[in-house]
């Protein structure tokens, strides 16, 4: 049978709207419901990780005043905070949340191509979160090996949670990866197969490009983590020696011999570096759409943006050992990985230029989503540039293991993506809920978060240059090179951190309150071009499009097209006198 695109077979399928409450909202196969389920779980577990960061900051800022956490708890919290934020919040929220919501809507599809698998993906994700949380209730508590889980220490005494805790973590990761694989295959297949008529690849919004590429990266990278989780679990449970060399742990011989701790690091970072882009690429894509919409201008250099996403995605698989310059691997690797790492800065820089150039000659509306998008550009420039320090092997050596690293990765893959998450939530909130959020509270949330986060992380760079080591529960006065000003700065950083954390409650209040009390939203309040704003109902109903699927006639960025009376032309609007053909791309001026 000849291949017929899904969009051309739409009439063959009845929609079977779910009737019962459970099928509609709990065991739902609707991508929009699953997206919200993913987002709610991710935000909830993210709040746990946020709370842990406040406890850690209390310890670091006021070590003698607040004696609430002991060293083992500190190490458990840094581990759980890191892992939750990277995997269970950001990865899940960008792909399970935004990926699920946006892919079918932006591409003019009725749903994901495998709705049942999509539902399973969420429930496995929830299970992964529950197993992770179970770590808090097992003997010894959760693992305190650091989110990198390096063996041998992750499974040897002296590290908190080295018996039960680490197993919970590894099991949870394995389940998460199963959940991600079901979701990721779905996202990729949907992008490949379920685009509506006229939606060519080079007409897809960059949000979809970012999520699409991130899903591919995830499908290729997560297996490395999956196997290392299994191998480490075997080392721990039945005494294999994949990662475990002969050691004298607490003065006693162990059963292990001959394993390689560095093998784990290679596997971990083979996953871990693409993971950075699994989080970053969706953020890149989404922020491109926010900037374009709110600046009323086409995204600048669309094709370059797409190629940059692809280039970054490919290069992200050949830079992993820049996390290991001082790991004890053959130092000659440093030449290769420093070169690839600095090369990846070129496509990344192009993206930054194009974001700024989208604002240039635009008609900039400083809405709440736009503020977050601009904030992102600033923090991402900062975090990206410090990446050039750490990626260049010689410069990395004095800085690795210090607060410079903490500042860098929080700026680049903590603050920056989370600013996009906030901007995106505000941007799509009216579509998802049908209500408008409170703009004043949104602006308050932006300013406190943006300025507060910078106040937290800017000083940390310089503490790191001074040499202040990271992952320290406390800094005794016996360390000579650390002046008292560092301890004072730690107090201020902690105060900023608590203010930023408290501000997130305002955000939650805004989300919840507006859901019930917010004014009813316009179906397309930002006057955006992309398809999700053109649904017949807001919020979109099951099946998204009513009787007929949309048909696309132009790219996603026909803002302020010369000759058009309106400053935007939706993608599904055919060419006419009042809605002229945009130049899309490739047409010379």
């Amino acid at each position: 049978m000849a291949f017929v695109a899904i969009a051309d077979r739409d009439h063959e399928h009845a929609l079977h709207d779910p009737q019962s409450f459970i099928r509609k909202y709990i065991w739902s196969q609707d991508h929009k419901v699953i997206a919200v389920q993913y987002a709610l779980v991710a935000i909830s577990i993210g709040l746990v990780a946020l709370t842990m960061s406040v406890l850690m900051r209390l310890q670091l800022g006021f070590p003698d005043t607040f004696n609430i956490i002991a060293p083992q708890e500190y190490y458990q919290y840094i581990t759980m905070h890191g892992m939750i934020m990277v995997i269970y919040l950001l990865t899940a929220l960008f792909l399970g949340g935004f990926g699920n919501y946006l892919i079918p809507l932006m591409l003019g599809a009725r749903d994901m191509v495998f709705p049942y698998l999509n539902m399973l993906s969420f429930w496995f994700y929830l299970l992964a979160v529950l197993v992770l949380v179970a770590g808090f209730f097992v003997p010894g508590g959760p693992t305190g090996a650091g989110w990198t889980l390096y063996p041998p220490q992750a499974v040897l005494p002296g590290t908190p949670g080295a018996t039960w805790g680490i197993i919970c973590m590894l099991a949870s990761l394995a389940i998460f990866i199963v959940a991600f694989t079901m979701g990721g295959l779905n996202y990729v297949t949907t992008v490949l197969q379920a685009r509506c008529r006229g939606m060519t690849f080079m007409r897809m919004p960059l949000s979809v490009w970012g999520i699409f590429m991130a899903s591919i990266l995830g499908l290729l990278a997560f297996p490395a983590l999956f196997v290392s989780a299994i191998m480490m679990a075997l080392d721990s449970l039945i005494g294999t020696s994949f990662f475990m060399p002969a050691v004298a742990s607490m003065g006693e011989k162990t059963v292990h011999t001959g394993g390689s701790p560095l093998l784990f690091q290679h596997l971990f970072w083979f996953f871990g570096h693409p993971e950075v882009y699994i989080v970053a690429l969706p953020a890149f894509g989404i922020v491109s759409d926010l900037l374009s919409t709110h600046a009323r201008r086409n995204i600048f250099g669309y094709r370059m943006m797409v190629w940059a996403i692809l280039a970054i995605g490919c290069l992200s698989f050949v830079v992993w050992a820049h996390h290991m310059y001082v790991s004890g691997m053959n130092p000659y690797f440093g030449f290769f990985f420093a070169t690839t790492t600095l090369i990846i800065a070129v496509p990344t820089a192009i993206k930054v230029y194009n974001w700024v150039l989208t604002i240039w000659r635009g008609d900039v509306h400083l809405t709440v989503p736009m503020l977050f998008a601009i904030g992102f550009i600033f923090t991402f420039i900062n975090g990206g540039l410090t990446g050039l320090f750490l990626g260049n092997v010689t410069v990395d050596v004095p800085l690795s293991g210090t607060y410079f690293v903490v500042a860098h990765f929080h700026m680049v893959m903590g603050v920056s993506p989370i600013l996009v998450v906030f901007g995106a939530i505000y941007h799509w909130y009216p579509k998802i809920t049908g209500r408008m959020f409170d703009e004043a509270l949104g602006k308050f949330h932006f300013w406190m978060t943006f300025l507060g986060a910078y106040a937290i992380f800017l000083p940390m760079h310089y503490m790191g240059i001074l040499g202040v080591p990271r992952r320290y529960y406390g800094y005794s006065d016996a360390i000579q090179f650390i002046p008292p000003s560092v301890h004072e700065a730690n107090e201020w950083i902690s105060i900023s951190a608590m203010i930023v954390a408290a501000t997130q409650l305002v955000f939650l209040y805004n989300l919840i309150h507006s859901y019930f009390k917010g004014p009813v939203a316009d179906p397309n309040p930002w006057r955006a071009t992309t398809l999700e704003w053109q649904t017949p109902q807001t919020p979109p109903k099951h099946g998204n499009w009513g009787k007929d699927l949309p048909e696309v006639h132009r790219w996603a960025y026909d803002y302020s097209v010369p000759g058009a009376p309106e400053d935007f032309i939706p993608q599904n609007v055919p060419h006419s006198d009042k809605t002229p053909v945009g130049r899309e791309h490739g047409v010379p001026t």
Partner: protein
Amino acid sequence: MLIAIALIVLVVATVLFHFLSPWYFTPIASNWDTVDATVDVTFWVTGVVFVAVNLFLAYCIIRYRHRKGNKAHYEPENKKLEWWLTGITSVGIAAMLAPGLSVWAKFVTVPEDAAAVEVLGQQWAWSYRFPGKDGELGASHAHLISVDNPFGMDPNDPVGQDDVLVSNPQLHLPIDKPVKMLLRAKDVNHQFAVPQFRVKMDMVPGMVTHFWFTPTRTGEFDVLCEQLCGMAHFAMRGRVVVNTQEDFDKWLDAQPTFEQTLTATKGDPVAGQALFATCTACHGAKGEGNRELNAPKLSGQADWYLVRQLQSFKAGVRGSNDQDAPAKQMIPFASMLADDAAVRNVVAYIKTLPEVRPAASVVGDPVRGKELYETCSACHGDTAKGIWATNAPRLSNMSDWYMARQLQHFRDGIRGGHPQDFHGAQMRSMAKVLADDQDVADVLDYIRTL
């Protein structure tokens, strides 16, 4: 508008912070000033980009902010501009990468005349090994590690016999001599890092890693572990003392060789009994301790710990603080033990003394104490029997009033403040977990149940 102003203010504030904050590299103490130069180049290139792009962004926001009648310019792409930007970026990247790689080429090339020094990391202490007269380090293996052979040396390897062993977290190095640091770990990953030397490397069990540098000024430098190695990672402290060649040679000659540590006497309890007579006045005939005389129970305590404490008293490392009268009192008595052999003998005798149960004198809440003890157990063990490998003495069945006082002393900086008392300094960091006397009482009451 506000956001544009905020961006400008943040850019200015960041630049000012860079130049005005008191935090920058520590004064360098090695040959790696090329590393600092590469960092400076990187700061200049990235600094220019940071300022330029952000200020342009702020300008765009102000200039193109929405006003009535404004319309954005429709321009899908501008090939020429994009290629220019790509080109300039590539040049900037190359300007940072080239010096970086050329310095790295020196880093990977260890000078042939570099002297080898082995650093041995463990949870949570440092020790060091020099190759001795033959210039070669002897074979070693993790499975040979024991309380009597903490370096895991192969006793049958003739090459290792003259290796010089430094069982102390303080390392001495001669100035202006390139040194190749060979790094080994007993248990988990560690990292040997001295900020003033700029270069560092992880230590990985099962392999020997390395880096090289030349110390360029004399002085004392803190050694930090910068690879998370468990609970007491933050308290794993050592020191490098860079000496003149002459001072270094003097120090090195005073360190024992492996052969010497093998032949050192195990201690003679019979000879020790005579020496112990002096101790009985306070500590009791069976070393059972006497609270009225501030003398803790000795019987049952680990011999390696008693040896170290006696040596510390003799050297004035313990009892140096005026607020610790009982410890001061111990110095003259410990000094009556003429040499290490005498110390070993008396400890050998103490080891033969019968175990007695000390009277309980500290009352607390053992349930709370159990929670607090979780921190302590990392070094002292789940049953508080002590672990030689973590330098942690036995706590169970020892004098509780004495431990209470020591914990208070550690917390208040009365014990563990001497620059040579590395283990005491470590305990100072840990004792802060017990915030007040109630915590101390609780944890000791729990230890009594073990």
